[in-house]
């Protein structure tokens, strides 16, 4: 019996912390991979429509984003419920779009300035009137390549 009693000697065994670095690194890697850098907070509702014939938007450095949608609940008191344009972190008017594109274009390296794409992230409940105005502005500044950003999915779901 002496054999068994021996076990009760001493303190509690210390939990080995040798693997703690591994766990920490694992978490670090996990967050490193899933985080996408967000350069502007959305101030508009942005439920994108669905489309099936999409193309991937490669090379993020060649893309200028324009957001359109209803202002989110915290802004409705000031800006109302009509769809608005958001450029970077500000609400803007249609007339500002051209200037914005030119500014953004000037910030990009010379060799990329001709191959820029304008990605339009538009809420599916927005009206086409505003979009046509934006398109007209884009044509004025010769930003002809646009991408209507959508979710991958069945396009007929947009109609509901």
């Amino acid at each position, binding site marked *: 019996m002496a054999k068994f009693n021996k076990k009760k000697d001493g303190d509690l065994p210390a939990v080995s912390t040798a693997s703690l670095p591994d766990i920490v690194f694992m978490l670090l890697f996990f967050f490193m*991979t899933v985080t996408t850098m967000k350069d502007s907070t959305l101030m508009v509702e942005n439920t994108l429509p669905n489309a099936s014939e999409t193309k991937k938007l490669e090379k993020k450095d060649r893309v200028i984003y324009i957001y359109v949608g209803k202002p989110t609940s915290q802004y409705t008191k000031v800006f109302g419920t009509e769809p608005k344009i958001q450029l970077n972190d500000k609400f803007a008017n249609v007339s500002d779009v051209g200037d914005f594109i030119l500014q953004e274009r000037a910030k990009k390296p010379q060799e990329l300035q001709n191959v820029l794409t304008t990605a339009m992230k538009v809420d599916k409940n927005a009206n086409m009137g505003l979009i046509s105005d934006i398109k007209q502005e884009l044509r004025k500044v010769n930003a002809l390549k*646009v991408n209507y950003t959508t979710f991958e999915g069945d396009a007929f779901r947009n109609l509901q």
Partner: protein
Amino acid sequence: MPRRGGPPEVNAGSMADIAFLLLIFFLVTTTIETDSGLDRMLPPIEPPDTDVVIKQKNIFTVNINKNGQLLVEEELLSLQQLRQAAIDFLDNGGDGTCNYCKGRKEASSSDNPTKAIISLKNDRETKYGTYITVQNELVGAYNDLRNREAQRLFGRDFTDMEAEFLNPETPSSVRDDLKDKVKRIQDLFPQKLSEAETNTN
């Protein structure tokens, strides 16, 4: 008695394995978000120098009203029928110069896919979602036809080839090869989608 020196340590040797297992699990299951969407070219603002005369039968007009209803070639059409109607129009080959067309060769419809133009008009009140659905169906019609020709000529889908061509990770030797093929298919069914200015009334 070997254990006299105190309680045994917990073996932590396999902890690293477990950590890596989890790491790999998360790596595989999380997708880094890439944006995707419909690529379109806007028409340049300067009007072309010469007025091009286009025969009415080579234009496929699509009108969307504010309730999201479609008027295609002066007829009310449902969104589900649009893709087939567009395919029929593009693939018609009315003047017989198109040897790869499989359409009905009606004289009242388009002469040749290279001449066929789809004109899309919408109301200012049209919902953006509806507009995207229509765009999607029209692009889909082009893609269906291009896929058909790509299958016939190269044995693989056009959309697949194009995606590989546009992917920056594709080696340049493969890209050069694909470039010609993609170009050739695009020339067979050039995407001529004109977006007229919207109706104000």
